[in-house]
């Protein structure tokens, strides 16, 4: 049995609860055991551009907690994932930093040595569970459903640190979508940023970027956007909703998190996947499930 300690971060419990709900439902079906640790705190992501030391301490404390449990981390958010990976990378490169971090952590009886692996949820599904095992669980495959997969910057790049997938031509997410019977469309702006990091700093620029991506999805004929990160999800869900009124969008491309799609294909009921918790309606997704022919 695969066993991980689950890292949900700050945004998911407050604003994107459907991600955690759906991920847990799917994990249970796939035989992934998730251990909670209420001591996990902010990954340090928002601190990176103002104070590197504080950023490292915030990240390292979480890594040390996982280490103490002797478990690898399964991270849902791509920004948390990227930030934990980057912190681990920095600390491993620089022994002086490692000493500073460990002196700080010693107060709580913690120590970072780098034994706990940091894995994103999608990587766990792809590498640890494997497409073959996932496919066996698909009982309600989709048909005629066109999905635009959005990889998310902080998982893909910097690739020498995150090692998530090929940074220029990634396939991991598309294959995970295809296994549900859905089609993954080609769209030129697939690997671009959703704009979330600038929301609150330069809202119009942030929305410009989200709008361009959505227009690109629309041109590619996608029915939905599929993401694996709460920031991307909020950007394409709540912010898209705001753009409908502020920018008079002529179309809506609802977005959902991957386990919502996978869960439906695995026959998990919509309420266990938090379908109704999305701001833009995604309950229509169920109509793409292949109807079994009676005879």
């Amino acid at each position: 049995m695969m066993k991980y300690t689950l890292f949900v971060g700050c945004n998911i419990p407050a604003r994107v609860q459907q991600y955690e709900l759906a991920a847990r439902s799917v994990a249970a079906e796939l035989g992934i055991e998730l251990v909670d640790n209420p001591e996990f705190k902010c990954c340090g992501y928002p601190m990176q551009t103002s104070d590197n030391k504080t950023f490292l301490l915030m990240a390292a404390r979480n890594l040390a907690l996982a280490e103490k449990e002797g478990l690898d981390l399964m991270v849902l958010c791509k920004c948390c994932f990227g930030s934990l990976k980057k912190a681990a990378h920095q600390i491993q490169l620089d022994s002086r930093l490692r000493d500073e971090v460990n002196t700080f952590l010693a107060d709580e009886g913690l120590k970072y040595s780098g034994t706990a692996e940091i894995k994103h949820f999608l990587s766990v599904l792809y590498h640890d569970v494997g497409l073959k095992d996932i496919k066996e669980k698909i009982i309600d495959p989709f048909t005629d459903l066109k999905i635009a997969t959005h990889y998310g910057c902080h998982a893909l790049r910097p690739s020498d640190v995150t090692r998530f997938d090929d940074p220029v031509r990634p396939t991991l997410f598309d294959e995970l979508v295809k296994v549900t019977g859905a089609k993954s469309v080609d769209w030129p702006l697939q690997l671009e940023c959703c704009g979330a990091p600038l929301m609150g700093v330069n809202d119009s620029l942030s929305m410009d970027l989200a709008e361009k991506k959505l227009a690109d999805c629309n041109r590619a004929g996608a029915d939905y956007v599929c993401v694996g990160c709460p920031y991307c999800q909020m950007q394409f869900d709540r912010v898209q909703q705001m753009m409908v009124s502020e920018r008079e969008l002529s179309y809506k491309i609802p977005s959902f998190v991957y386990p919502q799609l996978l869960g439906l294909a695995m026959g998990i009921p919509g309420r266990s996947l938090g379908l109704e918790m999305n701001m833009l309606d995604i309950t229509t997704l169920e109509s793409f499930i292949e109807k079994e022919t009676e005879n």
Partner: protein
Amino acid sequence: MVYKFMVYIALLVFGIGLTYNLSNWFRFSIGINGEGTTPWTRVRAAFKGIGGLFTKEQLSVMGNAFVQQILLQKHIREQDRLRWIMHMLIFTAFTFLLIFHALDKIIVTPLFNRFYLVMNPWLITAGLIVLAGLSIALWRRYILKVPRLKTSGMDLYTIIILFVIILSGLFMEITKLSSYDYYQKIWWVHIIACLFGLAYLPFSKMFHMITTPLSLLANAVMDENSDPANIATRQVMELDACTHCNTCSRHCSVGVARDNLGNDNILPSERMKFLKEYVADKNISTRKLRGIQQGITLCTNCDRCTVVCPAGINLRELWFSVREEMIRREQPVDLMMTPFSYFRGLNHQRIDQEQYDVPLASIKNVLTADCTSAPELADTPIVLAQEDDALTKALAHSGRTESFAYCFSCENCSTVCPVVVNYADSQQNLDLLPHQIIRSVALGLKDLATGSRMLWNCLTCYQCQEHCPQGVKVTDIFNKLKTVSVEDHK
């Protein structure tokens, strides 16, 4: 005679204090909800709000909150079993003593005529139970040392006054038979302590026995769509409901930041303590303002404090509202330029558009003041005299960022940057393009490197870094430049 006089004085002070506090809830306001309200509109809104509570549905919600949260204190039990035991011991036994002992003439005597015992075992047991609770309180604070549990003067006063009241009471019961003289002296200690506690109650932490239940009830029936005037009143009242119990700080997502930066205002419980004073007098020193601004902006809005607060205080809404007030004050806030601003951006429709831009414009002006944009530079040669060794040293010192030296200006980074692509005339909008920032670093031109709008509009999407043929860690360098600039502008 003296005794009676003292009782009346204590009651009078208590009454005045109570009225004063009550009036503060309507007179003061904190954050943006109270904008444009007068005490009169607030009182009217409160009556209207209370009037709307007499429906079957609302009454059952409040009834449930009363039993679960006020009597059984579910929130505390779920968070910390030991603390719950401590609080229940004090709460139940003290309430018992209050009803059957302090108010015995009003409550007990009419029920049980001539009910009197020399050494009342009930009183002694109740006193001992309170003592046990207080001992746990001390033990938690001074021996167990619960993380981030700060003991303020008020916390200490609360424990001491209860100790004095209970200990003197116990001694009184015990000495009743042995020495009348001694008993009389102790009686005075007991009476003075009780009356002082009563008179001082509205001004002390003990006031929470009134405000915390009120806060629990108010939050059970209110949400963010309630009348802003009522939210404003509730938010001032919530400051009185906070018992400085530290549950929020224990769970705070960014507690590590406080441990490293040493700014107590990063912890929600310490911010509440600050706000209690601030609400009455908003003239504070620049240093204090900076501290509170950092504290309230360095927040991921993870909601944990709100979820765990035993007093039911809606901290999420309080921070949202107070943050607006703090960041609009005279000092610009550098953290506004980080993803900590995300929650505010997500809620920008709830904030007046003109006011929304004020704090952002003010910090952007500070950070980009010294930069000359590339088009302007085209006509005048760059003066290398302003070369700054400190910058190149800072970058060269930290592993990946020393890679700036490998740049040969192929401009790949600027070609793949989604921010550059977004503007038809990118240099006019961004001052410099990414490759120009890297060149500025190499030339030691600090003002250019750290002041361009390009830097402050960087998404950190790492496209530039990924596509650099020379392995220059462009985004890492940008992040470092931002930290250098923030440090410089402190």
